[in-house]
């Protein structure tokens, strides 16, 4: 038995598959691909797969990962992406399959690319929105209410923004790195929500997770 980790992208229609449904889609793809993986041995036996870091509904990603155990020690990992891709919807593409280098608990931060536009084009011009975005990010504190398991609490997002840059070409693009993982996780929609409130207009944002990193700042492999 050997551990395997596949990296996959999630885009297009598949952005709208929730984490729970992604799990279901993956299980069915593994069943269809006849990939021989370890099943749980309890009362409800099922193929055992885990995801390092769940992705919110509506987010695209270039760096998702899923772990499982191959029953055959000599299995050819390089053949796995193609096997799975034949059994997955077009919006999910497995890029590679490797032996895991880090544990999911090593995950410390994630990078996002967020394209922002007003929900209604006549509410605000992109130029004005871009200026407001930079003003917003330059504030000394950005206080938002974060829902946690213990209830709501006030947090200052500026304390958590690890990297941040803005760009305005055809669209407004915000590039971010935020804490991620099981202990502290900041969802970029918190920041976008605060920004929408700051501008007083309804915004539409197109979010993509572009990288997942360990404490040492290395890409999660």
């Amino acid at each position, binding site marked *: 038995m050997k551990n395997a980790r596949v990296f996959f992208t999630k885009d297009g*229609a*598949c952005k*709208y598959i929730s984490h729970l449904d992604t799990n279901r*889609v993956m299980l*069915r793809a593994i069943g*269809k691909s006849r990939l021989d993986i370890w099943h749980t041995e309890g009362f409800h036996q099922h193929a055992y797969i885990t995801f390092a870091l769940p992705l919110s509904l509506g987010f695209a990603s270039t760096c998702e990962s899923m772990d499982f155990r191959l029953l055959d020690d000599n299995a050819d990992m390089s053949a796995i992406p193609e096997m799975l891709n034949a*059994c997955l*919807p077009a919006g999910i593409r497995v890029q590679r399959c490797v032996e895991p280098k880090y544990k999911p608990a090593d995950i410390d931060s994630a990078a996002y690319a967020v394209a922002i536009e007003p*929900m209604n084009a006549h509410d605000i011009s992109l130029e004005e929105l871009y200026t407001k975005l930079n003003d917003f990010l330059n504030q000394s504190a950005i206080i938002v209410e974060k829902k946690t398991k213990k209830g709501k609490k006030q947090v200052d997002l500026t304390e958590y923004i690890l990297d941040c840059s803005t760009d305005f070409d055809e669209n407004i693009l915000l590039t971010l790195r935020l804490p991620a993982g099981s202990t502290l996780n900041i969802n970029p929609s918190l920041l976008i929500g605060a920004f929408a409130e700051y501008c007083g207009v309804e915004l539409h944002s*197109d979010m993509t997770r572009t990288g997942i990193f360990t404490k040492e700042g290395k890409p999660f492999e």
Partner: protein
Amino acid sequence: MYPKEIEKYLLKVQKPGRYVGGELGEVIKDKHDVDVRFAFCFPDTYEIGMSHLGIKILYSLFNEKPYIWCERVFAPWIDMEAEMRAHDIPLYALESGDPLTDFDFIGFTLQYELSFTNILNMLSLGGIPVLSRDRHDLNHIVVAGGPCACNPEPITDFIDIFFLGDGEEVDLEVIELYRECKRDGKSRAEFLRLAAQIPGVYVPSLYDVSYNDDGTIKSVIPRDGAPEKVEKRVIMDMDSCYYPDNFVLPNIEIVHDRAVMEIFRGCIRGCRFCQAGFLYRPVREKSIDRINEECHALCRNTGYDEVSLSSLSSSDYTQVVPMLKKLNSWAKPEQVSLSLPSLRVDGFSDDILDEIKTVRKSGLTFAPEAGSQRLRDAINKNVFEDELINTCRVAFEGGYTTVKLYFMIGLPTETMDDVAAIADLGKKVLDTYYSVENRPKGKSPRVTLSASSFVPKPFTPFQWEPQDTMDTLREKQQHIKASIASKKISVSKVTYNYHDTDTSFLEAVFARGDRKLNKAMLLAHQRGMRFDSWSDCFSLQNWLDVFAECGIDPAFYANRRRDFDETLPWDHLDYGITKDFLKRECERAYASQTSPNCREGCMNCGMKKYGGGVCYEKR
């Protein structure tokens, strides 16, 4: 692919995965390469529509033809509808993202009467005129099939063509005719007139209906050479009938997320309340080899680890145990579990239980339908109390602790004693549990009694019967409740559910309605009514207001006893069942007299004329 402009709104609605397509198995073609575009519409949400077997069969069948591109359309939930209406986004098909106006055919499946308003709503959301008479060119042909097409009279103003019976052949014949008419530059009217000549095709606009003073039907007269009676289509050889070897695999969870294998069509039983049991006659089985082959391919191609062996009464398959054994020869090693839905009380045996035993030992569900033997005889359920008790014993010994029992109230000839017997039966099942020596330890048993309200349906022996009034039905529901209490059955061990009488009443109105109801349907649509089968949206008062405004008395349809010689709104449609047979069965019901099932003896229902199936089985 979904239209780009909806992306902005998708995250504002529940379950956006309903509206984007992009599933594995969806069929994408180039619209320039096809002659006919068919929008297959299911008038309910994605999760329900995607669970429906008929759409899976016809979607694959149509798309096998290089000249047809069939796509799927579902009713958007109210939150999405609001976004679409606010931003002028027309209803689109999931494969191409193109609006309904780009399609030659807009086809609906009629599974239940309470989805009728969704049809009108979907047409209007798609930018298609809801009334047939407002559609003029040879395109946007609105067609419909499915069980409710057996009395489509309440929606004849909106639908151009109804398909009666099995759709696999007739649908393609009509599509082919359309293709020819299009090529020859024929008009819409010419196409409809020609379509009416195809057996199984009902073009309602070619029939004039007149009424007597009392509101009953005087006559139905065909025009332009349309047949006097439209006869349903039947596919006799199930082994040569098309069956898909793959499904569109939903990305989000749907109601029935598993492989489905149809093992036979029809039902031998003849329960007198059951419309499907008469509409789909005669029973036609698929061979074990064919089932085995198709089922294995389906599981391999879809990746599902569960397959449902579907029919109206799966344990009535002549060789059910050999079939299960054969399937398990590959299903077990491949970790695929088999399930038999619609198990009859008397069809449940140790042998079957061994083959379908799954890791998830949840509950078992049976439908005795009536509490007393007398009433079960009157409805021809042919289930005996000792059979039920024995079956429950087998189940309890096999480790089950939860039993669900389904009943109907408001059945013809029912008395309050029959109603109270439902509670008695629940108590007896519970007692059975405690009488089983090796019952599962450490778990409390649970018996759920569920009572729904009977709705008389066309083409059944009860098609002439009045439905109980809502007051009577509520009284009966309370009587069951009171009877449970007086039996000192622990409330924690017996649950009693009952269904809304309001929706059953509306269902009864439309099930046996006539063309006068079209007016109410249109007004209801104009008032924004839809999703009547959802408690979130249904309001009986809104419907009563609509009926009042249209001068329609809903009780005329729901609660009136018809004479045997009254012309019924569906009399010009022929499902092979003779009216004489239905009359005889109705009279036997009055005498609480059962009838044998098709394998025990023939009651001459009229199906022999199809020359096959159970009528000609060797016995």
